[in-house]
Every structure is written in C-alpha cells, then in structure tokens.
C-alpha cells in the first residue's frame, strides 16, 4: 500500500496567525471557563479551560458550538426603529443611529423620571447582570424591575432560604465528593450542567448510590441506580411522608436539631394570645445592631423548666407539651412538626404520588440509615457561635439536588420547605457529604435586603428609597399602598404574593395591558423572549402587546427590546437595541449577582472580549451606563453632572457600594496593587489581573471556615468583616417559620403589623402556615380532572438552553423540532401510535403536535422540550424550518392567570406565597388529530421578516475558521 497523499496532521492554514484568549462561556448560565482559539482573528475552536475551578477543562455541546452562535445570520447588528405608520408586530424596521437611539430613550425616560418613574418597567430574562440592571432601575427610581426568577424557580430559592439560609445551584449544593447517597428530585435532565456532570460521574465511580425521583427518565436520570417515577406536583406529599417515617423511627439527628435549628424552641399555644403560634421570647440584653437575638426558650430536660436556648448544660425536649410559669401552654417546634406529619403516612402519600408506600418507607430508611451509620468525621477544628470548640466536623453523607420540578407548582414553596426540613432532620446542612453553602451564603433568615414598604419611596427625579427586590420578614415589609394595593406593576411584594422575592415577570405584560394595578409607558425587555417561550398564554400575550386603546395608542405605549438575535419578541419592539454576543464583551459574574462560588470559598469571574463587536452591536451594560449618564442618575455622574465612568469596565473597577466601602462588583485583586481579596480599594489594573488568571478569582477559605457556616463563629465574623453579611449572629435553621406565622396572624386580625384587605385574608391565612402542608396545586383544584387527566411538563435538553441556541446551525441538527412524549400504554389507550399527529388540550387552549411513545415516563404525564418549537421565520430560520412546522410550543395551553374569583378578579397562575409561575400545574388531555388535518403544528403565526442589518442565511456551511469563504447560497 502506498503512503497517503492527504496529510492528516497539518493544519489547512499553516501560516495563520494564532491567538488564544480565556474568557467565560455563556451558552448557558453555568458559566464555565473557556479558551477561545483564534485563527486570523476568527474563532477556530472553543475548549474548556483546564485551570478553571468550575469546569476543570470540560465543555458541553453548547459551549463547543459557540462558533455557530457568534457567526449566526440571526445576529442583529444595528439599532432599529419600527417604521412610522407600520403596525407593531409586523416587523417593519428601519435603521437608526445609536445617537438617535439614545436621544429617543433619554427624552422619553427623562420625562417619565420627572413625572412618574413607575411608568418605566425594566425586566430582564437573565439574572446574571442583576447588580447593574437592578442598580440602574433603583437609580432611575422605578420599583418595576425584576429578572426571570419569578417564572423560573423562585420557590426553590425562597423555600430553602427561608428555612436554611441558602439554596441550591448558585447558592449551594450537594457535596458529592463525600456523599454516599444522592437523591436528585424534580430536576431537568441537564441542571445545572457541567459541574453536576463532573461531580456525578466521580460520585458514581467512587461507589455512591444515585436515586432520581422524576416523572421522566432522561439525561442524568439514565445513569441513576434507581428511578422513582412520581406524579407532577406531588413532591410535597412525598417529602412529608418521608419526614413522617424519619420521625416515627427516630432516624433524625437529634444533636443537630437541638443545637443548630429552632426545633427545641417553645411555641406559644394560647390561641387567645396575639402571639399565638410565635416563639415565646424572654428579656435578654439586646446587643447593638443585633438581627436575631438569642431570646427564645427551651424546656430543659435536666432541670425541667424553661431556660434560654443554648444555656450551658441545658438540653431541650424536642417533644412534649409544657406550661410556662404564667400558665401559657407551649410546645417545642419539633412537637408541632411531629403533629403536622402525623397523618402524612406513606400510605397516604402513595395515593397522591403514585409511589408505593413500601418504596417510600425504603427511601426513608436508606436516607436515615446512611445518614446515621456512615458518619464522616473530618479532623477540622472549629468554634461555634456559642463559644463551644469542636475538634471535628461531622458529616451525614446524604445529599439532594432539586430544581424547577419542585418549584414550578403553586404548592412548590411548601414542598421545598418540606425538602429543606428533611435535609435538616438528616443533619446534612453545611456538612461534608450533605448540603454545602456557597458564599455569599448562608445569609440570615431572611436576608436583610428590603424593598421599600411605602409608595412614597417612588419620587420623581429620585432614586428608589430601597431595593427593587428584597426579602420580607413580616407584613410591614410589603410594598403596598395605604389601601393594601400593590405598588409594583407585577404585584410583587403585595398581599397577593407576599414573599415574591424574584418578582413576577410572567404577569407584567398582562397587568400592563389591563392597567391593573395601573398602566405603564415604557417596557424595556432585555434577553427575555416574552413573546414566545418565556410567557404563558403566548398567543394572547402577543395580542396584548399590539392591542390598542380606543384612542389608537398602544395599551403598552412603548416597547424596547435588547437582544443579540432575531427572537420572536423583537417583532413587538418599537426600538431594538442590538446586543453583543458573549465573545464580544466585558461581563462580570459577581457575588452581587448570581454567584459562581465553590463550596470552599467565594469565586467570581469575568468575560473579556475575544473578538470585536459585530456591526454596531453594543453591550447592554454600556447602553445602561450611557443612558444612566445622560439621565444624570446620581450613581453615573459626578457632582457637576458630568459622566463619571468612561465605560463598563471602568464602572466595574471604580464603583463601590458606598464611597470608600471597598466592596465592588468584583472581589479579586482589589487594593491599589491588587493585593487584597473580597474588600479593598479599587485597583485600576483589576481587569488585566483577571485576564492573566483565567478570568476567574477563587478565594479559598481556611478549612475551619468551610463547614457549619450557619453557626461557625470564625466564618460569620470573617463574612461580617468582609462586608458579605451585616450580622455575625448564628443562623438557626427555621424548621418552624415565624415569618409565615406573622402573615397568618395578620390575616387573622391578631397582629400589630399591617393587615391584609378583607378579600385576601382567607388566602393568606390558609397558605401562610409556619409548617409545610400538602395541598393540590391551585390550577388542578379548578380543573376538571376527568376531562383533563394528564399533567403536562417541559424541560430543557442537554444541547439547547431555552431559546438561546435557536440560531445555532450545529445544535439544531440535534434538536430541530420537538415531540410530545406520551407513556406508551397511555398513548395506546388513546389510540395514538408513535409519531401520530395529535392535539394536546387544556381548559385554556390546544396545540397540534406529534406524539412519541416513551416507556421512561410516568403514565399520567406528557412532556416536551421547552423552546425547541419556534415561530415561523424567527431566528432567521426559513419559514418552513422544522422548528415552526413540526416544532410546537406548549405554552399556548397554559394560562398566566387562574380562573376568575367570585368578584371577577384573577390571581396569577402562581404560588400564593411567592408568585412563582406554576408552569407544571396545567392539566391536559390528548387525542388523535382528524384525518385530513394538515401535518403541521397549530397554532401558526405569520412568518417573521428579516430586519436591516441582518445577513442572508446561507444554504450551506463549510466552516473553516480563519479562511475566507465559509458558506454560501447554492
């Protein structure tokens, strides 16, 4: 055989100019460290940065496809204005200069700021820029700001933070390095992507046992040692039954509960008393600035009387009933928990969840026995908040992960409280092998940030007197008018959704259209596809966006959309701001935003541009700083009203939370010479230092500060000195939630705080229970369960991140359209064959799509991928692309509101405590499409037009990075 002619080794462009730059990926919210390899200034390939603590060199399908995002024909490259005389939604745009764009915005927003700042609403789809977008909104003076959390997983954040002072993902997670038993429940197949994949693989190889509880078995669940199918929305019932069994058998960690939670604290049970259901408090010398005084009581087993908690030598009863010297009946919180779960037996839960009582018992036994018998002892000395020195850190190696499968239900908050309590009973909080916080968590319960509580906080030409988003601790923290009505357009922090800590982005458009609570003028949407996959009731929302008053003016007068791509939402803009891609800009992944810390210490990261901006694209951060400067918002201009910051990088280096505080967006390389971490003077070379260090700063805490941080004296004091938290008191776990009880007392007319309007009293009294309870989701309660017997869910796949990759030529070869997955037996029972066209219908609407049989699916559930189905012509895909012809959007069958109350008013289709969008509560039925119906999804929409500044889509690609020709038309 002769030797080969084609050389398999040499690069096709041997004399090309090569450059390697590090930055941070943004193909999803995981934010891995990447290296971008450039050839002749073009991206040749992207790989994981081996020196980055988050991903250690790995990269996923999305990250590897960044090239096709960067060079996509869906890019918007020029600011655009809706052509005068054309209809919004028709997609008739003309180019406009940035100068003109800024003029338009400055004039309009300036007028609003000078008259009624509330009329400007800024809502962003992605949270990881919240520190800046939130700052801008606050400086502008509008309360109408939030990011996507309300329609994503706020229940997970709130349910856990109000219980343990931390939560999953960005705030904490399972310590799989030391865990022996890992339970993943209600988690999408790829959440939270690479760090979970890395950890899960090591965990399995090191002998760990992985159980996945999910209606669907895809993604991670494929490698679970056991899959436990569960009916959607019933996870709370499972959790409560597990708690029942753990308590009944004594499988809880008593020592942990006594010292580190409020389990032993005595609750006032005199139902005539105004403090009924609150902890009994005693007089203690209150320290200056104390957040959570140590003034509660235990009933001491040793002396058989009430003593202050944590008294030397005292050990509380966790069970029993007692009477105080003044006759007040009291019980320890744990006793109330035991009573609460008395009837939540595994047999009871079996009826609801579809999981056999035997399995539920066995799961409880596995968790309890593993936690108890496989204890870890790390030789790490630490001191707790009460001065006791410990020689070791103990771990009970049972860990969990949960996400939107639990959260996106109207009963999610309580389900997640129940999960948090289960994790606490097992003694796994901030311990090896269990759950570990990631700085800046743990935080006090609740965290100190507060919104204003008075409409007078909104004043013309003034910053908002408070944060736009916060953590209410009692009814007096609500952001309501004197009559109890909401101040915010999304009704967040009102009596309707009191603990709506991430806002309710899913109701903004509906509320603004209806003028309830009031009309706004300008809606600015950033990186949010509200006219498609990020809205419920999408068809109706699209109509609301173009609906007009009798006068002919649009009900939402002015809409500005900032996006890098030709999304469905851009068609509804009056003004489009072309954003850069992640490869073209500076970005900050700050501890003030959604952090990317590790268990062992704070981490933050940056993006630096690796290629120049395309066309006239401008990073949204630069737009905000320019706008803030022109509007003369105090944070962006000096005393003379002159521009304070040259640009976004300059802003990041020099902005501090208060002059001289030393706390800024980035915690690394602070101090004049970059010698300080966490806190220090601005360093003019900070960006360069990040760039030299893989764009990441990782501060490792001393070992003695890495565990038990809720009660770790050294850690809490370090956190206070560093300005991470304001208080250094121990953060006792709220097994029993007084915050919720305060709202209940208000609803019962017993409190000295504000009280709700009469028509909301019952709702608050019902749901604000200091202990979790199970109730059927609200939407389900109002559905005809016979007519609509199935639950419908969505999840995002491994290879697409919501609508972010709709423009990607490579990733769409993995997912170009979606099916509705149906359990094979369920499908056959409905006469539906694999691949048949069917209708999926709820009480709200119906969608035509294709069915796919599945065996890895609980029979009462149907599901599909979210955001794979797209509107015709969107993302510069051809109007006959699979995404719009065979792909479908389930959102059309989901309503953003519950059916009307007796007074005609409608609540959001959300959790009544947090306003979390209850995506997965919807009930549906399926049936075969009629013969003769078109083999096309329904509804269909008028194909979107291309805009000026967009390139033509090539009909073929032959990508060779750095070469001249890469694709073309036939």
């Amino acid at each position: 055989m002769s030797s080969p002619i084609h050389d398999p080794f040499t690069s096709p462009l041997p004399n090309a100019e090569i450059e390697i730059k590090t930055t941070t990926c943004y193909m999803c919210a995981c934010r891995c460290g990447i290296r971008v390899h450039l050839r002749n200034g073009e991206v040749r390939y992207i790989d994981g940065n081996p020196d980055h603590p988050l991903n250690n060199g790995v990269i996923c399908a999305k990250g590897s496809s960044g090239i096709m995002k960067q060079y996509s024909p869906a890019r918007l490259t020029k600011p655009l204005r809706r052509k005068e005389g054309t209809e919004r939604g028709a997609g008739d745009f003309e180019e406009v200069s940035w100068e003109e764009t800024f003029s338009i915005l400055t004039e309009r927003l300036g007028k609003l700021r000078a008259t009624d700042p509330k009329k400007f609403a800024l809502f962003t789809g992605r949270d990881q820029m919240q520190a800046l977008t939130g700052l801008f909104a606050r400086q502008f003076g509008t309360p109408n700001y939030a990011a996507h959390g309300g329609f994503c997983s706020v229940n997970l954040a709130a349910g856990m933070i109000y219980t343990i002072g931390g939560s999953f993902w960005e705030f904490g997670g399972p310590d799989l390095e030391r865990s022996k038993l890992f339970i993943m429940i209600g988690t999408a197949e790829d959440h939270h992507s690479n760090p979970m994949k890395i950890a899960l693989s090591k965990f399995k190889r090191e002998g760990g046992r992985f159980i996945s509880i999910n209606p669907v078995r895809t993604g991670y669940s494929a490698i679970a040692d056991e899959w436990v199918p569960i009916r959607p929305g019933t996870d709370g019932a499972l959790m409560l039954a597990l708690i029942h069994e753990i308590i009944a058998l004594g499988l809880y960690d008593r020592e942990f509960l006594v010292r580190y939670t409020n389990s032993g604290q005595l609750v006032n049970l005199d139902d005539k008393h105004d403090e009924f259901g609150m902890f009994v408090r005693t007089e203690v010398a209150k320290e200056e600035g104390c957040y959570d005084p140590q003034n509660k009581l235990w009933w001491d087993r040793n002396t058989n009387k009430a003593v202050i908690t944590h008294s030397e030598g005292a050990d509380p009863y966790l069970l029993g009933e007692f009477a105080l010297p003044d006759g007040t009946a009291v019980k320890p919180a744990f006793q109330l928990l035991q009573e609460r779960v008395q009837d939540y037996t595994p047999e009871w839960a079996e009826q609801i969840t579809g999981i056999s009582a035997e399995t539920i018992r066995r799961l409880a036994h596995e968790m309890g026995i593993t936690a108890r018998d496989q204890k870890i002892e790390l030789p790490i000395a630490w001191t707790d908040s009460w001065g006791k020195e410990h020689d070791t850190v103990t771990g009970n190696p049972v860990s969990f992960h949960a996400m939107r499968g639990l959260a996106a239900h109207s009963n999610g908050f309580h389900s997640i409280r129940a999960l948090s309590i289960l994790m606490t009973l097992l003694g796994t909080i901030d311990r090896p092998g269990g759950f570990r916080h990631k700085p800046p968590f743990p935080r006090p319960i609740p965290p100190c940030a507060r919104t204003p509580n008075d409409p007078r906080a909104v004043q013309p030409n003034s910053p908002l007197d408070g944060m736009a988003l916060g953590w209410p601790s009692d009814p007096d923290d609500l952001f309501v008018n004197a009559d109890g009505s909401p101040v915010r357009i999304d009704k967040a922090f009102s009596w309707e959704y009191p603990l709506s800590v991430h806002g309710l982005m899913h109701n903004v458009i509906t509320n603004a259209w209806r003028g309830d609570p009031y009309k706004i003028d300008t809606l600015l949407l950033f990186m949010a596809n509200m006219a498609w996959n990020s809205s419920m009731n999408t068809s109706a929302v699209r109509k609301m966006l173009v609906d007009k008053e009798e006068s002919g003016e649009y009900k939402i007068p002015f809409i500005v959309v900032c996006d890098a791509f030709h999304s469905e939402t851009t068609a509804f803009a009056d003004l489009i701001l072309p954003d850069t891609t992640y490869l073209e800009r500076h970005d900050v992944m700050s501890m003030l935003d959604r952090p990317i810390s590790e268990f062992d210490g704070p981490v933050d990261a940056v993006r630096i541009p690796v290629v120049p901006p395309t066309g006239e694209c401008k990073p949204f951060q630069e737009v905000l700083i320019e706008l803030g400067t022109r509007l003369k918002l105090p944070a962006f201009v000096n005393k003379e009203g002159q521009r304070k910051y040259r640009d976004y990088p300059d802003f990041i280096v020099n902005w501090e939370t208060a002059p001289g505080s030393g706390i800024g967006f980035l915690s690394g390389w602070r101090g004049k010479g970059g010698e300080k971490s966490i806190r220090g003077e601005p360093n003019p070379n900070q960006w360069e230092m990040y760039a030299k260090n893989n764009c990441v700063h990782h501060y490792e805490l001393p070992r003695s500060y890495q565990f038990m941080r809720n009660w770790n004296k050294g850690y809490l004091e370090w956190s206070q000195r560093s300005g991470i938290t304001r208080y250094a008191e121990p953060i006792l776990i709220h097994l029993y939630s007084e915050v919720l009880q305060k709202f209940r007392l208000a609803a019962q007319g017993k409190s000295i705080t504000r009280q709700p309007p009469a028509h909301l009293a019952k709702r608050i009294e019902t749901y604000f229970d200091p202990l979790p309870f199970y109730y059927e989701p609200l939407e389900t309660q109002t559905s005809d369960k016979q007519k609509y017997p199935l639950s419908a869910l969505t999840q995002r796949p491994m290879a697409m991140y919501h609508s972010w990759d709709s423009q990607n030529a490579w990733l769409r070869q993995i997912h170009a359209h979606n099916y509705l997955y149906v359990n094979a037996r369920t499908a056959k029972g409905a006469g539906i064959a694999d691949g048949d066209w069917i209708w999926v219908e709820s009480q709200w609407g119906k969608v035509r799509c294709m069915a796919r049989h599945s065996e890895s699916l609980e029979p009462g559930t149907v599901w599909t991928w979210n955001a794979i189905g797209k509107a015709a012509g969107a993302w510069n895909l051809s109007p006959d692309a699979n995404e719009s012809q065979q792909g479908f959007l389930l959102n059309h069958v989901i309503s953003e509101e519950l059916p009307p109350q007796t007074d005609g008013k409608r609540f959001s289709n959300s959790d009544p405590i947090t306003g979390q969008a209850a995506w997965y509560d919807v009930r549906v039925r399926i049936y075969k499409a009629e013969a003769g119906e078109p083999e096309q999804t329904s509804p269909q929409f008028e194909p979107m037009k291309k805009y000026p500044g967009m390139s033509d889509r090539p009909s073929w690609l032959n990508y060779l990075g750095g070469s001249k020709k890469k694709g073309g038309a036939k």
Partner: protein
Amino acid sequence: MTQLALVIDLNVCVGCHACVTSCKEWNTSGSAGPLFDERPYDANPTGTFFNRVQTFEMGKYPNSETLHFPKSCLHCEDPPCVPVCPTGASYKRKEDGIVLVDYDKCIGCKYCSWACPYGAREFDEKQKVMKKCTLCVDRIYDQSLAEIDRKPACVKACPTSARLFGDIHDPESEVSLAIREDGGYALMPEWGTHPANHYLPRRKTKLKIHKDELERADNPLKVDGQLPKPGKGDSSMDDVSAW
C-alpha cells in the same frame, strides 16, 4: 504494537452531546475538515459529524432503562472498510492502529460505508469524499499543545469523563485497565472486526437495609420519652383471642 482506541463508559454517559460538537468544531477547521452543513438554517438541516449520540429506551414502564450511546469509528483491528476500498484511500496506520481516509485518493464510491457494520463513515456532500473519526491524530502528536491537551477533542470535552483514550495493547494503560476491570465489551463481535473501541456496561449500586438496623439503643425518641409504637390499626393478640 500500539492500538489507540476510545473506551466509552456507558455507566456515566448522560447524553450531553459534548463529544458531538466538540469533535465537529475541532475537525471542521482542522486537517480532517471542513465538515459540511447542508440547509443549516432551513428545513431538515443535515451535516457531517464524526460522532453521534443516540438515546435508547429499554424495557417497559416502570422497569424501563434509558441509555445514552455515543458512537464513532471504532478503529477496528481488522477493519472491513480497508480491503474494500478500490483506491487505497481507506487505510490503517501501522504505528498506532488509527484508521483514516486519504481525501486525495477517495473517489466517494461509498463502498466502505457499506462494509462498515457500525455506520461510522459519512459521505461529505461538499467535498464528495468519505469522512470519519481520526482519533484526532492531528492533536495527539502535536508537540505545540500542552501534554494535557494531546488527546482527542471529545475526550477532553466530556464532562463526565466517560471517554477514555489510550493504547489497548498496553496492559497497564487506563483503557486496558477499564476494559479488564469494568467488563469492557466489543460492539457486535459476531462481525469479526475486532473493534478497538470498547464500551463499559452499566452497573447499579444497591443498598441493603436490614430490619434490625432500624432499631437502635440510641434512638433519639427515647431521649424525649417516646419510642416507636405499633399503629392502632396493627395486629395484636386482641384481634384473635378472648380470654
């Protein structure tokens, strides 16, 4: 004699497709590229990929399993694609056993893709030649890369480290160890191709609970004066006797 190969651990593969697109991006701009995409923004997009992942379901609910299965050229020790090639374009390297296509000799007759029982070879519609996994031969020997990077793109990318790379003829190599200790198997051995790539099967970790582990001397309920009691509905002598 060296035989380089991949070992793919199905026990940890979660079907993320990192191997699919990291391969695509590396090779399209490399010596094995470019890799064509047809109708990239139109209906029914298709393109040349060296590695694909399929997901299968096995069994019937509730006893179903989901399996993610990546597949690329298995660099057979006795590759059927080589002898059938009329031009000698399809060849197996003596030094490391990698099977390659010489694009300059290939006439695109597709005979090799008929002979390959694994469907590993794709016809590139633009260049009109056969293309397939090269085990990143242009990376693994490239001294200008750091040693840690001298491995196939897919191996470097895989977030679960499901892809191992090495010499299956070296008994001490990571791949040989995995095959030996974790039951590594060949795909469709009945074809006699002796594929160099192997797969590691799925293994379940179980936990046995003994009933008496649920009873303990240090049961915390005792501390508060309560022990587990039988339920009122449970059976007792009262149900069957009458003294």
